[in-house]
């Protein structure tokens, strides 16, 4: 499969905004056409070629190399194709994504995949705050798609999410699944505090015990069958080491909540 390669040759001095790195935008563009795409370097209008060396051809896959931790909005609005990154990426990766796949072999900044409705984002190392979450003021977060973080994620994973799947291989920060409307969040490591605050529906699963808010009600310890399906899929997607057989066959404590809201959400904590 053909791919366009971007290699960072000049590190940005201030944040660089590159929503043009998107297979649909690259389609039918020549190399120089790609180099001439507009990017914002702070308040300075520049071209992609000012920062990246462009080689290769074809738009269905974009491969990027370099320390992109100061580069924002990669894959914004992406609906098809694939972006793979060797290195760290900055904020707003895959914002508004509706299809395709982004793989980052490195760390990601805050706001991975906000407003996502489809597609998949995979981060091989750690990610920042607000993964798959709503922007401020919005009452609805992501409405579909999958986000897989292999390392740790920070606060507010999946805030206000309505549909979709978020998996964190390591630990999650505070307020995981806050104000969640529906959907599934699986944290293979530890949860922070105040998990599921204000959640209406949806499931939050963790392989570790966690402190629960006073408005969550312990209901039972049981073996949730549906987790088998999720876990076997996750094992096939790079989370094999973290998910042991006992997690698949074992029991989980079920808390229902948030009592302040509809009380139709659940938090499942592995109980052995």
């Amino acid at each position, binding site marked *: 499969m053909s791919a366009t390669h971007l290699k960072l040759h000049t590190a940005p001095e201030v944040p660089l905004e590159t929503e043009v790195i998107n297979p649909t935008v690259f389609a039918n563009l020549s190399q120089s056409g790609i180099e001439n795409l507009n990017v*914002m370097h*702070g*308040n300075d209008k520049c071209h992609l070629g000012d920062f990246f060396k462009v080689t290769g051809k074809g738009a269905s896959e974009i491969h990027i190399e370099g320390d992109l931790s100061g580069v924002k909005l990669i894959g914004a609005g992406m609906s098809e194709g694939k972006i793979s990154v060797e290195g760290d990426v900055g904020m707003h990766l895959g914002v508004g994504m509706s299809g395709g796949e982004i793989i980052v072999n490195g760390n990601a900044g805050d706001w991975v995949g906000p407003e996502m409705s489809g597609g998949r984002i995979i981060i091989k190392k750690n990610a920042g705050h607000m993964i798959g979450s709503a922007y*401020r003021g919005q009452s609805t977060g992501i409405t579909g798609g999958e986000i897989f973080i292999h390392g740790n994620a920070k606060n507010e994973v999946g805030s206000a999410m309505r549909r979709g799947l978020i998996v964190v291989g390591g630990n999650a920060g505070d307020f995981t699944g806050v104000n969640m409307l529906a959907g599934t969040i699986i944290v293979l490591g530890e949860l922070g505090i105040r998990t599921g*605050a204000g959640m209406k529906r949806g499931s939050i699963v963790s392989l570790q015990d966690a402190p629960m808010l006073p*408005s969550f009600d312990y209901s039972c310890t049981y073996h949730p069958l549906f987790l088998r399906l999720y876990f076997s899929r996750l094992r096939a997607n790079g989370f094999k080491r973290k998910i042991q057989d006992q997690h698949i066959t074992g029991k989980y404590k079920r808390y229902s909540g948030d*009592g*302040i809201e509809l009380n139709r959400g659940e938090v499942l904590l592995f109980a052995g």
Partner: protein
Amino acid sequence: MTKEATQTDAQVKNKKPVSKKVDPYEGKNIKIVKDATCTFCGCVCDDMELTVDVDEHRILKAKKACVLGRAWFYEHKVDTRPGVLIDGKEATFQEGVEAAAQILIDAKFPTTYGMSDSTCESQRVTVEIMDTINGNIDTTTSVCHGPSGMAFQGVGESTATLGEVKNRADLVIYWGGNPAESHPRHFTRYAVTPKGMYIPNGKKDRTVVLVDVRRTPSTPVADIFMQVKPGKDFEVLWALRALVKGKKIANDIEKQTGVSREVLDDLVDRMKNCQFGVLFFGMGLTMTRGRHFNSGALLSLAADLNEFTHFVAKPVRGHGNVTGADNVVSWQTGYPFGVNFNRGYPRFNPGEFTTTDVLSRGEADAAMIIASDPASNFPKAAIEHMKKIPIISLDTKDTVTSSIAKVRFAVSTYGINTGGTVYRMDDVPITLRPAFESTYPGDQEVLEAIRDRVKKLLSGKKARVAA
């Protein structure tokens, strides 16, 4: 001046003729400023009576001022430091303006911060400068009640002006704040002791509750003191919300939070059955783990309580005009703080465009700091970055920030030397009555000069338009 204002001034004079007894200020050129406004804290008390020594350029007496207000009025006197420093060397006003303008237009990610000790008139000019150069703008709100502003965007707010609290509130709750030391007249002028329309006996007609992690000088004012384990405010607020809604809560609530079920039930009972309740809250909520969710829990609790009675909530805002900064930035950009114009239109994202972040991450390549001192109270990483980039500072006194500034303007003090408008913590706009003239320009004057120079430099091909 309007007809009736003149009239009222005349009446006041007629009622209270100048005393002819012993004059402690004999021989001095004395001016009395009535109904002046103290702009030190967010209380913005507008009932000051200032005795001003016109020749000496200082305030000798500030009647009705609290201990903070007196320090504010007495300590802002005439200064001898140079008006403008560039790289620590004295320079002319024009040279300062030129240097500042150059810094701003050369930068790719210029940011500005502060503005809470500044008039709305100055704040409007500041936003205009950043709009002109496609910069980034943030105010001290982001490290004050910024999280409350974010909570507000999520859940809204039931609120009231302070006069309504004075007239009606029979249950007054302070959460995570210490007004006795930070806003000394909050109790006496607005919320606890004053008599109001339906509170004829003042404090006797109110129940005062204080919630904090420690006893403070504010504690004695309270009828009920509820001590919460540090970092457990959210859990307590969440438990209260559940109880107000008649839902059950965990049995180990006392172990979790340090507050017993009995105390919670009693408070819920009082909140649901009062006539007009108010929850004031401070930075004990916004600056601790949970931040905006802590404020949001409190705002939601107040909203929930409206199912049973009338209930309002209000952040106790810090600096004199931090509320004005929120208002000005909001009406000009649509967002209250943390606004970025890089693309020729405002964007908002706390954590991305807020000052702590753009400095700590090393993103801003120039900064204009107006009437605040981030170099002394920001996280270390932010301060380190400030030392690497050109800083323009405008301040009434030397600070750590002004000492590292490339271009430093000494400016006069709002409310003491300059007029204008400020907004009290409850969004009520209040006018200023300056006491004496300073030898330094007001920040508005400096900012307007910078704006005009920036516009001039950018006219023509350098103009920054939307991208």
